[in-house]
C-alpha cells in the first residue's frame, strides 16, 4: 500500500484539519458518560444484561438518525483495536472487552459512541483545534437524540448515574490537547500543573508514562463533573486554556528574543534527524516532531504542513506501524519502519512544494 493511500485511510479529520487556535491547541474532546436505568453497570453485569444493553443501544442509535457504523470488539483483531486506541477512538479498556462491547463511528471519525465500556454508553466528539463549545453542542445533541429511545439512569440529586463516582452528575469530561514546547523549555509547566489543579482541572501528558509528556503534548481536562452545569465546566476549562495559550505564546516570543539562533538550530537539527535518520525510537521521534512543529509555527520551516505533529505522533505508534507494515514487527523493526514512514511523509510535503509528482 502506498503511504498516500495509507494516510487517506488512517488520518481522521481531527488530525489534519486546522481548527481555531491550532498553533497551540491540537484537538478538543468532549465525552459524556451515560447508563441505562434498568441494567447493572458493566462492572457486574451478566452476559445477558450486556447483550440486552447493546441491543437497546442499537435500537436507540439507529432511531437517532446519525450515520454511524458499529464495530463489534469481538469481530476485531488485536492490531485493529490497537489502531483504534492510538487514534483515540476507543479506550484501552474497551479494546480489552469482548462480549457485547462495541463502538459506533462516524465517517469522519469525529463522533464515536463506546458501548459497554466502563459505562453503558460513552459519547465522544473529537474536533480539531480549540472547539469546546462546538464539540459540547454536538455531544449534547447526540445525547438528546439517543435519550428519545433509551432510558437513562438519572437521579434528581446526583444527576446522570455513572459506574465510577468521579463521573457522576454531568458525566462530562472535556479535554483539550495542547502543544506546549515554550512552557516546557522555559521550565514553567511544573508551576502550571499544580495551579491548574486548584480549578478542578488536571493536566497530564498523553503520550509517555507518568509525568513525562512525549512531544510536549499535554491534555488539560476537568476533574469535577458534579455541581456545575456542562456550560460552566467547559467555560472554566476554556478560561484556563486561554491563559495557557497566552503564556505559551509569551514563552515562545521570549525564547526567540533571547536565544533565536539556538532555537532555530534545534529546530533544524530535529528536522534533519526526521528527514534523514534510518532508525528512530518513539521518544526521539516525538521530541523532533515537537521541535519541527514549533519551527513551523515560528516560521523557520515553511514547506512542511502543520498537521505533521498531530498526524505523525499517532501514525508512528506501534499499532499503526505494524498495520502499515502488514504484520507484526519487533521493536527494532518498528524503529526502522518509523524512520522510513517519517522520511516518506516529509518527502511528500517537499515534493508537493516543488510542484513535483508524488514520490
Amino acid at each position, binding site marked *: 500500500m502506498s503511504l498516500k493511500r495509507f494516510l487517506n485511510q488512517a488520518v481522521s479529520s481531527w488530525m489534519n484539519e486546522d481548527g481555531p487556535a491550532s498553533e497551540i491547541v491540537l484537538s478538543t474532546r468532549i465525552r459524556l458518560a451515560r*447508563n441505562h*436505568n434498568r*441494567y*447493572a*453497570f458493566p*462492572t*457486574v*453485569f451478566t452476559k445477558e444484561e450486556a447483550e440486552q444493553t447493546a441491543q437497546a443501544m442499537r435500537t436507540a442509535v439507529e432511531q437517532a438518525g446519525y450515520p454511524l457504523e458499529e464495530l463489534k470488539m469481538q469481530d476485531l*483483531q*488485536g*492490531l485493529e*483495536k*490497537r489502531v483504534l*486506541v492510538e487514534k483515540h477512538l476507543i479506550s*484501552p*479498556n474497551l*479494546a*480489552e472487552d469482548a462480549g457485547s462491547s462495541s463502538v459506533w463511528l462516524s465517517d469522519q471519525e469525529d463522533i464515536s459512541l463506546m458501548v459497554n465500556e*466502563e459505562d453503558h454508553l460513552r459519547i465522544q466528539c473529537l474536533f480539531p483545534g480549540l472547539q469546546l463549545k462546538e464539540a459540547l453542542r454536538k455531544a*449534547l445533541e447526540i445525547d*438528546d437524540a439517543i*435519550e*428519545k429511545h433509551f*432510558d*437513562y*439512569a*438519572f*437521579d*434528581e*440529586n*446526583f*444527576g*446522570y*448515574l*455513572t*459506574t*465510577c*463516582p*468521579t463521573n*457522576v*452528575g*454531568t458525566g*462530562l469530561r472535556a479535554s483539550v490537547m495542547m502543544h506546549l514546547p515554550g512552557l516546557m523549555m522555559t521550565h514553567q509547566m511544573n508551576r502550571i500543573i499544580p495551579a491548574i489543579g486548584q480549578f*478542578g482541572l488536571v493536566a497530564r501528558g498523553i503520550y509517555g508514562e507518568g509525568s513525562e509528556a512525549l512531544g510536549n503534548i499535554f491534555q488539560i481536562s476537568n*476533574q*469535577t*463533573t*458534579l*455541581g*456545575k*452545569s*456542562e456550560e*460552566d*465546566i467547559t467555560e472554566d476549562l476554556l478560561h484556563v486554556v486561554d491563559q495557557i495559550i497566552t503564556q505559551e505564546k509569551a514563552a515562545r516570543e521570549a525564547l526567540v528574543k533571547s536565544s533565536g539562533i539556538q532555537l532555530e538550530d534545534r529546530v533544524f537539527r530535529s528536522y534533519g534527524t526526521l528527514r534523514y535518520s534510518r532508525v528512530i525510537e518513539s521518544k526521539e521521534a516525538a521530541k523532533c516532531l515537537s521541535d519541527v512543529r514549533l519551527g513551523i509555527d515560528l516560521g523557520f520551516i515553511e514547506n512542511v504542513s502543520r498537521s505533521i505533529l498531530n498526524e505523525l505522533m499517532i501514525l508512528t505508534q*506501534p*499499532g499503526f506501524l*505494524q498495520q502499515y507494515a*502488514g*504484520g*507484526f514487527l519487533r521493536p527494532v523493526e518498528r524503529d526502522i519502519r518509523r524512520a522510513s514512514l517519517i522520511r516518506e511523509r516529509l518527502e511528500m510535503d517537499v515534493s508537493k512544494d516543488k510542484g513535483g509528482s508524488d514520490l
Partner: protein
Amino acid sequence: MCEVCAQDKGEAFMNDDGAFSFNHLLAGLLNVSPVMKQNQPTQNRRETVECSGCQMTFDQFLKIGKFGCPKCYESFRDQLPPILKRLHSGNTVHQGKLPERQGGTIHMKRKVSDLRVELKSLIEQEEFEQAATIRDQIRSLEKEIDGERGGADES
C-alpha cells in the same frame, strides 16, 4: 509473518495500559485519618448497607471504587455526600443538564427554585407587583408538579 503473534502483541499492549489506581485512592480517601474513623458512627453501620438492586455492599463499593448498578446510588444515598464532596470540589448536587424526555417534573422543580430566588430578591427590592406575578407562577407550577406526581402514582 504470524498473525497470532501480532495479535498477542496487540492484546498485551492493551492490558498493561489500564493501570489506573483510582479505587485504591477512593478507599484511602474515606479512611484518611484513624481519628475520623472513630468519630463517625456511620462507619459501623455502613457494613450492613447493601444495594437493593445488585446486592453490592457499601464496603465492596469502597474497595473497587465502582458502583454495581444505578440503584446503588439510591441505596447508598446517605453515605455518598462525603465522598462526592471530596471528588467534586465540595459539590453534592447535580446542576447540569436534565434528560429531555425523562426529566419530567424535575424541569419544573428547577424552574420553581429559580423563581423562588427571583421572588426573594424582588421582595427585598420592594418590587411587590412583580413579586406577586412571580408568586402566582410558582403556585401554578407547583400545582402542575403535584398533578403529575398524582397521575404517576395512579398509573
